[in-house]
């Protein structure tokens, strides 16, 4: 995956056929894991903090629902059109942010499913285990996050 252009609020990336298939497949798996409770504060003892935390979790659940609706539209044939030797992905700024949030949600979900390891190294087991599958998804999502953000100007 490579960023090949940015005109105003439009972003373009080229992907080889394998990357294009993997990205489409990855987005279809969102949400990978169920919601997990988020904390609004580590130290606030104000009674209002509990209400804030409830609102945060409602907001995150609602946001996820909205992203789920949008995920299917991020890799349509119009967005991911064939070019020589691969596909060209064209995203608006908002679509790019949606894709980043979806992919990072998958990455974090896989990491949590693995037990929140401190290191990102591959598990030793060579047979097909759920842990390996989560590890693969975490790395794959990270690959696309890294290339979507790039190092260019925002």
């Amino acid at each position, binding site marked *: 995956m490579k960023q090949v252009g940015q005109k105003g609020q439009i972003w373009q990336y080229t992907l080889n056929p394998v990357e294009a298939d993997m990205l489409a497949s990855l987005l279809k798996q969102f949400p990978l894991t169920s919601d997990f409770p*988020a*904390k*609004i*504060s*580590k*130290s*606030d003892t*104000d009674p*209002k903090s509990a209400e*804030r935390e409830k*609102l*945060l979790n409602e*907001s*995150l659940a609602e*946001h996820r629902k909205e992203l789920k609706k949008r995920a299917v539209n991020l890799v349509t044939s119009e967005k991911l059109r064939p070019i020589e030797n691969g596909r060209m992905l064209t995203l608006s700024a908002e679509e790019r*942010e949606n894709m*980043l*949030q979806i992919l*990072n*949600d998958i*990455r*974090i979900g896989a*990491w949590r499913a693995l037990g*929140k*390891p*401190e*290191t*990102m190294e591959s598990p030793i087991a060579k047979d097909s285990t759920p842990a390996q599958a989560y590890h693969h998804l*975490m790395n794959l999502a*990270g690959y696309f*996050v*890294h290339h979507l*953000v*790039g*190092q260019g*100007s*925002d």
Partner: protein
Amino acid sequence: MPSIPEPVTFPSPAIEQRHRSDDELAPTYYVICWNDPVNLMNFVTHVFMKIFGWNRQKAEKHMKEVHEKGKSVLAREGAEKAEFYVHQLQHYKLHATMEPAE
């Protein structure tokens, strides 16, 4: 008949009467981003730029602080604004909280 003296007007003492607005009296919160081993550094920088409108240099400074010191204070705001920032940061799955500033 004694003459009535003209009333003397003394200058009023210079008492500083500064009224603090409700905003100043309201509690403030630090918006803090905590380190984790999973969020990518260029992604964290991107999110800071997007949410706070910072330039890359400032966003990278805070990202490095998170990475090296375990956390970075991103803003000090009233409850509502701090809550807004935490929601935005958590939409990107960054580990962010709001902590009382006092």
